[in-house]
Every structure is written in C-alpha cells, then in structure tokens.
C-alpha cells in the first residue's frame, strides 16, 4: 500500500515540476524564486532559459543586477537605468514583436522592492508585475509567464504605509509557484548533524560573524560530481486553492554529458537522491530463511486442537461481564486457610 502511494506521488510530482520548469501553457503565470548567498538561483534560471530555448519560446531578460547578456536570451533589457514605466514599455514592445510565447525572467526583485517601499514612491509592485503579464493584443491566448528571483538575505523593507504588507509578503501572496533554492552541501551537513542529535551548523551570514559573508562548505568536495546540483523546495498553488509542497533535486549539468534530446526528466525528488534516500525497510523473513532451523514455530492441527481444549484457571474472570462484578476480590481457599463465618463472606 505504501509503495503504490509513494510511486504515485513520485510520478505526479515529477510531472508537476517538469510542467513548471518547461513553463507549459498556463502552468504558472508568476513563479517566485527565493535564494540567498549560500545558494544563488543562477543555475535554476539557466535551466528555465535552456528549456525555453528548446521549446522555442521567446526569452525576455530584465536585468537589475546583470551587466552583460547571458547566453540564450532573445531580448536583454537593462533595467538599472530606467524607471518602471520605461521598463513596462520595453517589455510590451518585446512581447508584441515576438509572435511566440514569452518567458520573462527578472534576475533580482530587491531593487524594485526597495523602490516601492520609499515614502513617496509611485511604484505599486503587484500592478507593475501584473502589467508585465498582459497578453499582447494580437494574440490574446499567448500570455507571457514570469520567473522572478528575490534574494532572501537582503534587508527587508517595510512599505511606506505601515498598515499595508511589505513587498516580500505581497510577492509571496501573488505568486502561483514559489521555489526556494537550497544548497545540497548545507542540507547534507544538517542531515548529518541531525543523525548525531547535534544542532544544525550555520553557514555564512547566519553565523553572524564579523567580516564573513559566504560560508565555507567543506562537504561540497566530498559529494561525487555526478550527485552535485541544487535542491529546490517547491510550493505550487493550483487554481482550486490546493497547495502542494515537495522537495526536488536538479542535477548539475556536466559538460561531458550534455542533456540529450530524449524526454527523460533530469529532476528527481530529493528522497530519490542517493545521499538522501531513506534506507529501505527490511522485508519480512520468508519461510525460506528458516528452512535449515529445527526450531518450529507453526502448529500442527492436532496441537491446535489440544490448545483449544486447555482449560484456563480463574473461571470467574472468564465469564462475560467481568466476573466479580467489577472489583470484588475472589479468593480460592487453600489448605491452611480457615473460613470464619462472621468475618469472611463470599
């Protein structure tokens, strides 16, 4: 029973991550990727772009933190020198000129969040993002999808109005999918500490040490090169409102083994990763294991009948209704006992 459940969960969840990474039609209009310095989201963005290229989608890259065009981008829009109306303008013209489906990638939302949190800012974060997702007028069925990265270790900005939610809360609320990337070596270190009942070690900024920005992960070198990659914690929200939480592993692309054109999905569930696999339960011993032993645990028919015929002591307790009327002491007289008619009673 448990096996069918887990294999069902495996197929279903791998299909889901495949749909989300390939950005199938309407799979997830707004995907928010949360990362930090210990594990940047760059490998995940590269994977999105690679799949968009192979499915012939048009990739629009809004660069808030990148100076040069990464490979595989169709339209590169540097955003650090534009105000947000110009950005929307540039995106709209890029989408209308491309006839195919568009994937919009934003490499860092923190600058925008900071701008929207300023006291006299006119930038409304959610309406800005939704205006990017407007489908072009000629082909209204080709709505673009958005993948945006937010760095979790940048200081949080509270919004200008103290009664409205901060930018990160707004983003997490409006996203249809949230992918948090984790470092495999950090998860491995935490798992090893947990197995020894020790506290989880902290890395980088979490160590709160002066001058330390990124942590040193010595476990990274002990992982074999074909088991390296990043861990994705996925939260997907369906239209029905049901949410799904799952942990995945995206293997690192080795230059010697490029992805073939086959349809095999390289992403695994984290539980299927060799270092995270739970040890399989020992199966019940079959009769064959006990073949050479003279110790016999089974009963023959005759022994069973004899067992049924055994009369057990304490007849009164065997009666239905709890013999002794719930608490009365039943005492069998022995050889040396005297029965005193005044004191003892039945």
């Amino acid at each position, binding site marked *: 029973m448990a096996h069918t459940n887990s294999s069902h969960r495996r197929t279903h969840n791998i299909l889901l991550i495949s749909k989300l990474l390939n950005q199938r039609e309407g799979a997830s209009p707004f995907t928010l990727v949360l990362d930090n*310095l210990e594990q*940047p989201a*760059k490998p995940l963005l590269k994977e999105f772009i690679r799949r968009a290229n192979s499915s012939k989608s048009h990739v629009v890259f809004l660069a808030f*933190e*990148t*100076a*040069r065009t990464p490979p595989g981008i169709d339209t590169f829009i*540097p955003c*650090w*020198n534009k105000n947000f109306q110009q950005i929307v303008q540039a995106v709209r013209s890029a989408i209308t000129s491309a006839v195919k489906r568009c994937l919009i990638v934003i490499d*860092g939302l*923190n*600058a925008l969040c*900071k*701008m929207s949190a300023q006291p006299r800012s006119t930038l409304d974060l959610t309406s800005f993002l939704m205006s990017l997702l407007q489908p072009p007028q000629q082909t209204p069925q080709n709505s673009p999808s958005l993948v945006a990265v937010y*760095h979790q*270790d*940048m*200081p*949080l900005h*509270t919004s200008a109005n103290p009664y409205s939610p901060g930018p990160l809360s707004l983003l997490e609320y409006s996203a249809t999918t949230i992918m948090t990337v984790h470092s495999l070596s950090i998860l491995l270190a935490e798992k090893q500490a947990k197995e020894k009942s020790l506290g989880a070690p902290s890395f980088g*900024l979490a160590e*709160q*040490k*002066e*001058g*330390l*920005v*990124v*942590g*040193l*992960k010595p476990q*990274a*070198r002990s992982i074999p090169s074909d088991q390296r990659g990043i861990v994705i914690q996925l939260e997907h929200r369906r239209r029905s409102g049901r949410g799904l939480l799952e942990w995945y592993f995206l293997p690192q*692309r080795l*230059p010697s083994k490029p992805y073939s054109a086959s349809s095999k999905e390289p992403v695994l569930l984290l539980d299927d990763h060799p270092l995270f696999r739970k040890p399989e339960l020992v199966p019940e011993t079959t009769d064959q294991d006990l073949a050479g032993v003279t110790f016999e645990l089974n009963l023959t028919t005759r022994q069973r009948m004899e067992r049924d015929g055994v009369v057990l002591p304490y007849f009164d307790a065997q009666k239905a209704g709890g013999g002794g009327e719930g608490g009365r002491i039943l005492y069998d007289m022995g050889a040396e006992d005297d029965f005193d008619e005044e004191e003892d009673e039945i």
Partner: protein
Amino acid sequence: MSSSMPPVLASYVQQCIDDRSLTTLTSVLDTPTNWLLIRFLVSALQKSNHGNSAAAAQSRGAPANNYKVIFVSVFRSFDTWSELARKCGVNLQDAVASSKLCYIDGLAVGGNSPIGAMPLENLTLRDLNLCLISAIKVLSAEDPSSKILVIIDGIDFLLACQPKTSSNDIQQVLLELQSLVHGVVTTCAADSALLHSTDASATPLELEHTTLARGLAHQARWLFQLRPLETGQSKEVSGSIRISRGGAWESNEGARDLVEGEWLFHFRNDEGVKVWGRGEA
C-alpha cells in the same frame, strides 16, 4: 606574476582580472584590503608591461592582453598606494605618466591634484561617474584594443559622506561601469554593524550599507573576505582570507573550476605578505 604575489592567491587574482566580471573584496577595521588591492593593480599593470610582445603576438593572431587600469581611491592618499606598489616593484608615478594607469583621487577634489590624475569636482556619486566615463573615453581612445580594469577603493564611503546617496544608486553606477569596461574590482567594509543590520531599529546608514554589502556580494563572481582571527591577536598571523564564490558565479565548463577556501595571512610593512593554509608551516 612578480614575487610579491603569494602563490596561493595568484590563480584567483589571475582569473578575476581575466574574467569580465565584478570582484568584491570585503574588509574589517582590523584587516584592511590595501595589500590585496595593490596586488590586483600590480598584476594588471604587469600584464600590460609586456606591450611589445603583445603587439608581436597580435600579428600572429593571438588576442591582445593589454590592460589599462583606472584606479579610484576615495579616501586613501596617492602616497599610501605608491609606497605599497613600490614594495611590489611598480612605480605608480611612471604608470600614470605612461597612461597605463589613470588615477582618480578622492582626496584632491576641486581639481588641485598634484600628480596629473583625472580631476574630480566633488566627492559625489554623480561627479565620480562623470570622471570615470571621461577616463574610460581617454584610455580607450589611446588604445582601442586594450582592456580596461576599474579598481575602486572605498565606494561604500560615499553612503556615509553623501547621505542622499542610496545603495541602489551605487549599484547602478557599478552596473553601468561593468557594461563599459572589461572588469571591476571594488572593496566594501563588512564590519558587524555594516553587514548584519537588517531590522528596522538600525540606523539608515547601517541599513543602506548592509544592502550595499550584500548586494555587491550577490553581483560579484568571486568574493575575497579578509577578517581577523577569531581567537584574538597574534604576532605571526594578521588574519584570515576566505575566497568564496559570489552570487554571480558561473562554472567555466570545460576548464577546472577554482575551489573555495580559507587561508591565513600575515602582512608586514617591510616584508610583504605571506599566505598559507591552516595547519601548514
């Protein structure tokens, strides 16, 4: 590489200069990055020293490896840098004179810089940006095939001396720079109050500085972190240097990637710097 470059660091500095990327050096009050920055400067200048052989190599079809450096020093004097460079065997005055190096002096605002450096009107981000753009124009006009490396010491100081400057503005300038030149090396202070202030009770300067420091770490390809020893002061060790991948790190597929690591270093004014691993002699 000259003998002043510790062998451990040579490959990292080499890759940071060759890559078209941002490199961030962080420091703490006890462990300034002067010695490391001057070694970046010296190794870039020494690459451009092989100017004659570079011309011959170009005629054979090899790519030019001619580096010009724009060095911006916001609050340290030219004499400090000259002294450090002299110990590494490079004369900064000569480099400025032969226009391999363009020096922008933050201490000599108002145009009264004595050594022929680019004039800087005011110590504001806008003026610094204009000065940099004119320096880039001058250097690339002289030699269009040269690669320009911009080294900026103390850009985070602008957050303190110009309160209206925000970390977004500084990052904007740096991104613009990166799109114009070959590579950028910048320093940033990473003391506790300037790196770990994330809650609203911190002062505006601390919040801005934390945003800038972490933002620079996210945009850098390699991050050099200098900090003192955790166990206290020592006569034989100045501190530890940790070289980590920044947020913009990418694997160079094919070639072997450099590994992250942490080493101890000892800097003595007259003897130079020694870098060694923990537990080694």
